[in-house]
């Protein structure tokens, strides 16, 4: 009961909040529309030298107040721009980190069962075979398909590699030709392993730039023979990777050649595939399909999460995207909040300014100023003040982001705001300034000239 009541209460509070925000937005929208109308009537004031002189004089008459207002709005815009830029920087950083592997890639590793199935006990080691690769390849939804043989049963196998007098241990990966589709490698010389390399079990090798630099010291490596373990391989390609030197310490050889040379039979340790444009739900269906086939052939329970371990980049990427979306939303809310505080500050100060200028406004009215002209005068001041302050904050924000971008941090890449966001910010500032001026301006338009002129 209590829980239900609490839930109801929370719901009501949320509803009230939403309604309040909606009401505020409607009020603000009406205010904006009215101001737009007034601007259409009073646009000439924007071109008036006298009016701009007046604005400057009024702003100059109380320097401390102007300064404080400027600081609060500039700070608001600065925080907004900075946080927006930082959010984008984090987003770029995440995408760059992900770009090392295909964002639509799926990796399935054979492991040990944890659920008894088909008469077998738990803890049985599953091992994929070449036929699993052949079959998975034909599964609907699979775009590129590859697999890796774990040499000596080791996932990361390093073997001593020699060329002439140079020798060092490098990671050795025995794969099918389409593994290149799951990696962000860029082939700089020659080509990656071909289907023929695998079909004919050729002794071909594709080496990373680190390997090439170490072994060949600048000599062209293509066509040269290197010794891996005790087997000779001919270099057919060299690759680089945006991930850096660590990613380039690898040697790829045909899966079939490795199975022969290292006594691996038909065994495969990992299936690799990309799933095209599949969304998270489609991707899961395709994975379930493939795991189902594997379960049938290898007698494990398809719901056994331990038997095969799936690494699904589509789901992962989706999770990250959601996380970053939440971070950016959070950041925008905070930034807007800070800015709103600044705008309320401007509004407050304009309100006081209007009170102080009651007499002046009264005189203007007696001399024939229309209420619109008075309203526009106050709004013009508010927009000018907010605009100048905002531009200062905008410049400061862009400057700091520029400095941050030079730090060369892998998590924050290219933190900036684009032209659209800059223009958006400018429009937003004018709107914010107009809103800041609206309520004080209404107060000014209501000034009663009789009362204003009476007080001496």
């Amino acid at each position, binding site marked *: 009961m209590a829980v239900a009541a609490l839930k109801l209460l929370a719901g009501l509070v949320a509803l009230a909040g939403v309604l309040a925000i909606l009401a505020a937005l409607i009020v603000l929208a009406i205010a904006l529309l009215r101001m737009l109308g007034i601007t259409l009537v009073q646009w*000439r004031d924007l071109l008036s030298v006298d009016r701009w002189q007046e604005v400057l004089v009024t702003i100059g008459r109380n320097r401390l107040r102007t300064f404080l207002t400027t600081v609060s709005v500039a700070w608001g815009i600065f925080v907004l721009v900075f946080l927006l830029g930082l959010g984008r920087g984090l987003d770029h950083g995440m995408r760059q980190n992900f770009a090392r592997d295909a964002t639509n890639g799926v990796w399935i590793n054979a492991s040990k069962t944890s659920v008894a199935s088909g008469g077998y006990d738990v803890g049985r080691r599953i091992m994929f075979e070449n036929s699993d690769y052949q079959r998975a390849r034909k599964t609907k939804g699979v775009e590129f398909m590859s697999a890796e043989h774990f040499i000596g049963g080791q996932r990361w196998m390093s073997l001593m590699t020699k060329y002439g007098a140079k020798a060092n241990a490098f990671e050795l990966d025995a794969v099918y030709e389409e593994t290149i589709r799951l990696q962000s490698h860029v082939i700089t010389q020659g080509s990656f392993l071909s289907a023929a390399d695998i079909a004919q079990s050729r002794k071909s090798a594709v080496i990373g730039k680190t390997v090439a630099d170490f072994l060949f010291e600048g000599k062209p490596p293509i066509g040269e023979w290197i010794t891996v373990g005790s087997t000779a391989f001919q270099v057919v390609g060299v690759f680089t990777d945006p991930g850096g030197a660590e990613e380039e310490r690898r040697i790829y050889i045909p899966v079939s050649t490795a199975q022969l040379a290292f006594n691996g039979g038909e065994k495969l340790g990992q299936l690799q595939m990309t799933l095209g444009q599949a969304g998270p739900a489609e991707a899961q269906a395709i994975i379930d399909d493939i795991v189902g086939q594997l379960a049938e052939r290898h007698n494990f329970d398809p719901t056994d999460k331990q038997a095969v371990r799936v690494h699904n980049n589509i789901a992962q990427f989706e999770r990250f995207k959601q996380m970053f979306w939440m971070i950016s939303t959070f950041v925008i809310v905070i930034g807007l909040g800070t800015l709103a505080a600044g705008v309320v500050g401007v509004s407050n100060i304009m309100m006081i300014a209007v009170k102080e200028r009651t007499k002046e406004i009264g005189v*203007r009215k007696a*001399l*024939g100023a*229309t209420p619109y*002209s008075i309203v526009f005068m106050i709004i013009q001041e508010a927009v000018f003040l907010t605009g100048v302050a905002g531009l200062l904050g905008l410049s400061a924000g862009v400057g700091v982001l520029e400095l941050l971008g030079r730090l060369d941090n892998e998590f924050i890449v290219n933190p900036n705001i684009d032209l659209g966001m800059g223009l958006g910010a400018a429009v937003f500032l004018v709107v914010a300034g107009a809103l800041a001026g609206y309520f004080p301006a209404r107060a000014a338009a209501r000034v009663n000239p*009789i009362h204003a002129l009476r007080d001496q």
Partner: protein
Amino acid sequence: MLRLSKVNKYYQVGTHSLHVLRDVDFEVADGEFVAIMGASGSGKSTLLNILGILDDYDSGEYWLGDTVINKLSESKAASYRNRFIGFVFQSFNLLPFKTALENVALPLYYQGVTRRKRNQIAAQYLERVGLRDWADHLPSEMSGGQKQRVAIARALIGKPRLILADEPTGALDSETSKQIMDLLSEINATGITVLIVTHDPEVASRTQRTIRLRDGKVVNALEASASHPGIAAAVP
């Protein structure tokens, strides 16, 4: 020029209303020079506000030229004030951050006259009140008499048919007051109707006619003097 018939005005003070103007009736012809006199609280400020379209009245009619002025929109009232009426105040009410020239030019700003043109015209009007050399001075650098001259130039620049002056000499010494009254007489001589609200008999005596207010009513000269026993005794 202007005519009031049975104009009534109430002010709401707390829960009860104050009857400030009671059936005020009078007429001012074109080109007249008239004083409105009355003690404080007699309703003369209220009357001035109604005449200046700064305030509404509750019943009766106020004709300005051939228009009934009643419950105008603020924009319309502003436009009438701008084109028909020039105001002169006791405390001058010049804008302190504008020069004499800019103060004089202000009503033309609200008529949409270009800056060049209005400054040209303003210079002519400053010359007319004898302050041509003071055009670039701020009000704070001028004497009371000079400020009132600037204010009068400002009241004239819109070519009004009616000048409403509220105690125009109230803040000035007698010599300067005399000069300001001379100036207002000159203006009246050009055919502009001038109405002065004052409690100073000296000022009233410079006009052609005096309308007296007491307790919100227009009274004739005899009734008015009844409130001053000394004078009443002198009347047979």
